[in-house]
């Protein structure tokens, strides 16, 4: 009897474990798929040729004499959205990290440069597309 009990308990444990693993697997897969579905390969915005620094959604676009650089507006410290430029510096409002206009950190806590994206202008220079 006791052997049966053990066998049954083991079976239930294994079955429970398998169900748990399936659930975790399903969670992982469905989430990954969903993330992939939502992941935009590129984003396009109207381009303002006169603005040296533009804050558009989650991106910062720097237009420095024909040379266009697109950064993520997410601070590399903890992801806060940087929404202002002051005296040639991009400043994170959450913990005060500062970056220069090349996206390199000049004041901590952030130590990594802002993520850069490949940016292309439309032929009429009215749209900018970032590869994300």
């Amino acid at each position, binding site marked *: 009897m006791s052997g049966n009990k053990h066998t049954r308990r083991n079976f239930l444990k294994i079955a429970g474990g398998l169900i748990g693993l399936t659930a975790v697997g399903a969670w*992982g897969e469905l989430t990954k798929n969903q993330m992939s579905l*939502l992941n935009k390969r590129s984003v396009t915005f109207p381009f303002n040729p006169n603005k040296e620094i533009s804050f558009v959604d989650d991106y910062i676009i720097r237009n420095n004499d024909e040379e266009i650089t697109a950064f993520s507006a997410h601070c590399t410290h903890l992801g806060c959205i940087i929404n202002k430029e002051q005296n040639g510096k991009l*400043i994170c409002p959450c913990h005060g990290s500062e970056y220069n206009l090349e996206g390199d950190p000049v004041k901590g*806590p952030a130590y990594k440069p802002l993520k850069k994206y490949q940016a292309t202008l439309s032929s009429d220079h009215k749209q900018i597309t970032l590869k994300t």
Partner: protein
Amino acid sequence: MKANIKILPPRSTYGSLSLAFFSFVLLSGILLAIPFNVDKAYTSISELVVMNPWASFTRNLHYWSSQLFLIFSLLHFYDHFHKKSQIGLKKALAFRLALGVLIIFLAMITGFLLKADADSLQARQILFTLTERIPLIGKILAFSLLGKAGSFELIYVHHIATFTIFLTIIIIEHAKRIWPSALDFIIAFLILVTLSYFWSAPLHDNLNPTVKGPWYFVGFQEILHWLSHPEWSILFIALLVLLLYIVNSAKGKAMFFSKRSLLIFSILYGLLTLIGLFFRGENWQWSFPGTKDYNYTVLNNFKTESVDFSPAFTQAEAQKAAVILDRKESCVICHTQTHGFTDAHNPKAIGCFSCHGGNPFATSKAQAHEEMILIPGNLDNSRQSCGTTQCHPNIVDRVPTSLMSTLSGMISVDKYVFGEQKSPNTLTNVNQLTGHSAADVHLKNLCVRCHLGNPKTETGPVTEESRGGGCLACHLNYDAKADSAWKRHQIDQNDTTYLNYHATISLQVTDNHCFGCHSRSARISTSYQGWHETTLTTAEMPRDSIHYRLVEHTRVFKKEPTDVHHTLGLLCIDCHTSYELMGDGKHYAHEENQEVVQCKDCHFSGKPLLTPASKLTDESAIISSLRFGSITGKKYLTTEKRHQALINTWYQNDTAFLITKNTKKVFAMKAPDKECTRDKAHENISCSACHSSWAPTCIGCHNQYDPNEPGYDMLKNKEVKGSWVEYTGSYLAQLPSLGMRIENGKKEVIPVIQGMILSIDLGSFNKKLHDSLLFRRLYAPIAPHTTAKEGRDCKSCHNNPSALGYGSGKLTYVIKGNTGSFVFDPVYENNKNDNLPEDAWIGFMQTRTGMVSTRTNVKPFTIEEQQKILLVGACLSCHKENSKVMKQSLNNFSEVLKHRSSRCILPHWFTPDKSGN
């Protein structure tokens, strides 16, 4: 703590009260779901706060019950640890309990995120990033917890279901009961009702630059600020959960150690929380009580209104008002008739709050107007009004660096003249003028009222008596109706119709805006309009309004030639750019350093410097578009100095055009006359040296301190006893003298005036006998702004003692035999301090060095330069200036001299050079 325990009713514990608060969390949460719209979370919360007092009260109840649930849960923990030597729970239960604490925080932080204000949006980013950095499952976990960017659906689900269900199960399992005791329920109810009525749950106005997490995470925010690798904080959280688990389940040393660790952590975390709450402001910078903006950037987080069950407006009125910048702003519910705005500043677009502050979610007048900015745009509030992140932050950062804000030149020159500073070029700022030296007090008594930081303290239009006012100094306009309504209010305070006529904040900067300050000192505004200040008193002023004008009730001006640009209808802003006027972010010592526009930028020969529209700065592009419509394809004239585009010009078919900014008159720009450019003789002469028809001058000024004189401290804007008094001599309108500006090895002849021929009785201020009289003879460079189409004639420079710096008088070329020489007969007697005629810069055929002008790079002519000028003067004493020989001399003077007739007697100092001249 034991004493505290006694304050609880006999059968109540922190745990039982915590359960009571939790029941209110659930109850109020269910009710709050009714008005809350997760698709427009921020808007819906602002709407319920403003328009639905019962919903607002319920939200407060939800907020306070959850905060107290957290606090009492933690106190419950402490209580247990304190009273029992060991808890000794079963491991599984202890684990669930430790996890439960984590879930409490998650339930609360998701609640914080659901208000979707500026604080919440950044907190969401932090939570996402931190979770994402958990090894292996981080990315999936972060997405599962917070969902797709911009949507709050998943967060809402977790808040109301996942975490709430989990917590409910754990609480029931732990407390072994579902319902709190009736007494605990009543106690909790009374506490919550009181708190919820008086203090509303926070909602960020989305304008204030400071972002902070909820109070219980502010300590964590402080820790994260110090961590370059914030992912370590995940381990730290895991460690805390582990400690909670150990303390509840382990025995002996492990339990004791973890209990102590938790206690030490709690104390330290409490300290960090206090730091984060009270000493961190914008960009998480240190900010201390008493410092500028402390109340705005730190204490604003605590600004919270009480619930008003009978709002100052009806629901129907509130519904009509627009949602502004995603928030329901209560200001515009009452102020519905206010008009007079430009499109950009229309309250329908930016509300009242964006400029005037106050409380946008208030439901009564008193709440709404608390800490309101009556006059936004003054420099001391401009960062909270005009300069907020969404509006004009870059301009507002620049303006304080402009000379109109710093007064650096004015202050440094004054101190230089008073002998308190070695150079007139030291960069300084009017805000640093805190000393009490003779010059400091002189400046405060007589000079420094005209800085942009001088606040405008009363409503009303900008007049010729206005000074300062920050952004308003230039951008404030009252139209006729607004002006008349405002005047009616001045007569009858009960007439409040002026509230409906809002002044316009616009680009329509007129010369009147500049007049208040620039009609003084160098008197550019008045000179430009052709008015010269006299020493006449009001009583002496002839009744002739064409030739005389009264300014500020006491100053009598006389008509002189107007500037040709003024006659054509050009205003100050038609030449001067936004970067000149509002600064370009750099500090300059003097106005000529800050200013960039030169005559030759518009009146050029050959090809101009151009900027295509696509290369305009954003500011120039916006201003140009607002003023003149589409900028596409345009090419703008550009200043030679610092390459700034002149946005009211363009270049088309080899012609340059200018359009006046306010009146839209178009002019084709003229090239300088060939006389100006054809010869090398005058190539180093500035346009204004020739084309200024007159300049205001004054001589014989004496400064004395009178301790009994009723005076004024212009920095503090208050009356003081004792003041410097200026005794002026005569004011004249005459052709400017000429001097030499030497910069980077380049010489340029410029107009100068008798800027500071004065005496200062230092002894009257310092009360020391050895500090007696200080005498200065300084000329000053000037941009006269009295441009005439025709330049001054040859003799007005070459035969004019005043132009050369000798002062007024008669200069005669006398020929005796074969020798010629000049004789000068001055008008003014010699000043006993230096034996030079009162109005002179230099002695006749002499020069001076050292402290000679208000600039270090401006000097009188050297003797050699004077001789060169007077050599031509000698010729002009016989030859008419339009004569053939004089015109030839412009092309090659040496050649003309070589072939002079025997009747030509040159000055005695002339010695032919090796070429035989």
